């Protein structure tokens, strides 16, 4: 599924910059934004296969962003990647339709595996 379009949403700019490089290096088309609002705007304008979303962000947090994404009705899978690894937030995100859940720090290979799985699911939907 290399070549999938990935939207990275995280308020840590260094993290998004690094992760963009790593994913791009692995063949993905990556767009990085640093807030929930920016993510929604990006999704309204462009198509993405997988969204990698942080939960704890200033302004619109990850859960609200996820709700907004669901409202858009896109064929996009969302992966949660957060440092706040509580079961409660994971359960809530899954209930809202997130594909899977990863806690920071995570290995790039682990993330790639999840993106691939999410992409495969999205392809199935398409």
């Amino acid at each position, binding site marked *: 599924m290399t070549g999938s379009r990935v939207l990275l949403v995280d308020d*840590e700019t*260094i*993290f998004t910059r*690094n*992760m963009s*490089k*790593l994913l791009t*290096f692995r063949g993905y088309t990556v767009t990085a934004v640093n807030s929930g609002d920016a993510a929604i705007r990006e999704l309204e304008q462009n198509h993405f296969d997988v969204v990698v979303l942080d939960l*704890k962000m200033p302004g619109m947090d990850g859960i609200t962003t996820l709700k907004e994404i669901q409202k858009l009705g896109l064929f996009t899978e969302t992966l949660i990647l*957060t*440092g*706040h*690894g*509580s*079961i*409660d937030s994971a*359960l809530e995100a*899954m*209930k809202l339709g997130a594909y899977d859940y990863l*806690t*920071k*720090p*995570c*290995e*790039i290979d682990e993330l790639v595996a999840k993106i691939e799985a999410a992409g495969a699911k999205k392809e199935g939907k398409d």
Partner: protein
Amino acid sequence: MDAKVTRTSSSARAAEPGDVAAVRTAAYSRLFRKFVLLTLLCSVVPLLLVGWGINLHYTRFAKQRMLNYFETQIDYHRKIIEMFISEHSSKLQIIARTHTREHLARVENLQEAFNALNREMQAVTDLGLIDAQGNHLAYVGPYDLMSRNYAREPWFRQVMEKGIFISDMFMGFRREPHFIIAVTQLKNGEKWILRTTINTEAFRALVENVRIGQTGQVYLLNQEGLFQTSPRSKSTIMGVSNYPMGPFHEGIQIRTLDGLQDDQGRTKPRQIASQVWLKDPRWLLVVKQDYAEAFDDVNYANTWTLIFLHVSALSILLASILITRHMITIIKRRDLQADQLNEQVLQAGKLASIGELSAGVAHEINNPLAIILTERQLVLDAAKHLPMEGPEFREQLDDSLNQIDVQVQRCKRITQNLLRFSRRTESLIEPVDLNAFIREVVELMDREARSSGIKFFTELDPTLPPLLSDPSQLQQVFLNLITNAIDAHDGMPYGSIRLTTRAEEGLRQAHVAVADTGSGISPAHLARIFDPFFTTKTVGKGTGLGLSICYSIVKRLGGSISVRSEKGKGTEFSIVLPYTPPPELQESLAENTARAKGA
């Protein structure tokens, strides 16, 4: 600002446990006094008032009855005496009127008249016929009085004047106390007298033959206060009485006599007396009794009523004091339980705050860790595609990048432990791998233990299945036990804490032991270590709640906790946990499962 500081310190001072205890003790004392006072006002006082009232009424009633009895007695006596005298006066008058002097002058005729007088009772001693000069014309009786002349005797003058005369007791020629009834009769211009002497013994018997208790007396006094009959005391007929007669009065008079003296000059006890004046002769009839004896029944009933009343009041008071004391004890216990509950809530609140803080810290650390890891990956990716100068450099680079990964993973484990700790404060049942759980707790506490020179050893039973339990509460139990175990090594250079798990398949329960090599607990303290607020730690170091919380958590989870300790050698806490929680916690499990399915 200064004012604020002062206020804060003053409020802190007000909340000191000693002050609170003193305030509470004062409040309990007030409550005790109020309850007892209320009981006194609502039961003892009304009881005493009603009891005293009834007793007073009864006493008055009974005394009045006694006085009425006295009145009846004296009235009855008066009538008997008056009837006796009047009967004999009448009989004498009839004899005088129906017989001539000449007829009676013959001794056999006088004897016949004497017999007629004595027919019903031997009430007269003699009978004499006396002429106007005071000489006996005839005499029937035991005394030799025929030669006596009565012209100078007081009674003679009285009877000659009045026609009938009843004398007081006098000695006369016979030299013994007696009284006479004399009547005159005038025939053919000449007066003659028929005189009889009343049998003193018969008269005394008539008057005195009345028994009123042990101290009762009935007697007659003439107007000069001389005894006309002898009372029960040693005084004799015609002896002088010290009875305060008072002036003549009509009807019956009831009196209370105080301070009278007997013959020996001793003060007599208080007496009650009723008195009535006879019409003829003018004698005073006295019925007298010791006051104490007269009202003995009343006093007896009175005394027992009052004893019963006061014993009842005392019993109520005593019962009230005991019940109140019991109630206060219950209130004290409840207050203590409320305090413990508040303390636990406070403790739970503290843990929740620490949990929130931990979650925040974990998140803040996880983000830089994630960046470090991406940086490492970038370097790793770059290194794969860029030429490296020399094998040592590549080896060093790989080694460093690996070490970065190892340390990041180590940090991750720490933050995950912190997050797990912060997860929840409410009870939530889920499957718990006790062995893995204990390893995590040990890892969390390892640094603190090492800094005190203490090593952890674990003997974990690999066959132990996952338990259905509350991990956050179990974590609190093990953290408390391990903290205590570390503190038990205070002042020791090194020591160890051994954690053991063992499965008991038959009973479907797990055994966990936390044993330390610390200072141990003395037998005196051992019985109290699960009591709230009991601590042997120095002030400020322990709240005395840790083991109490452990105990209540383990109990709530359906398990049990026990302790074994030897002073100077160490302590071992044994916990038994069921594989499945008690029914009341099953609901929590069902809820948890439902949530997981919903996800």
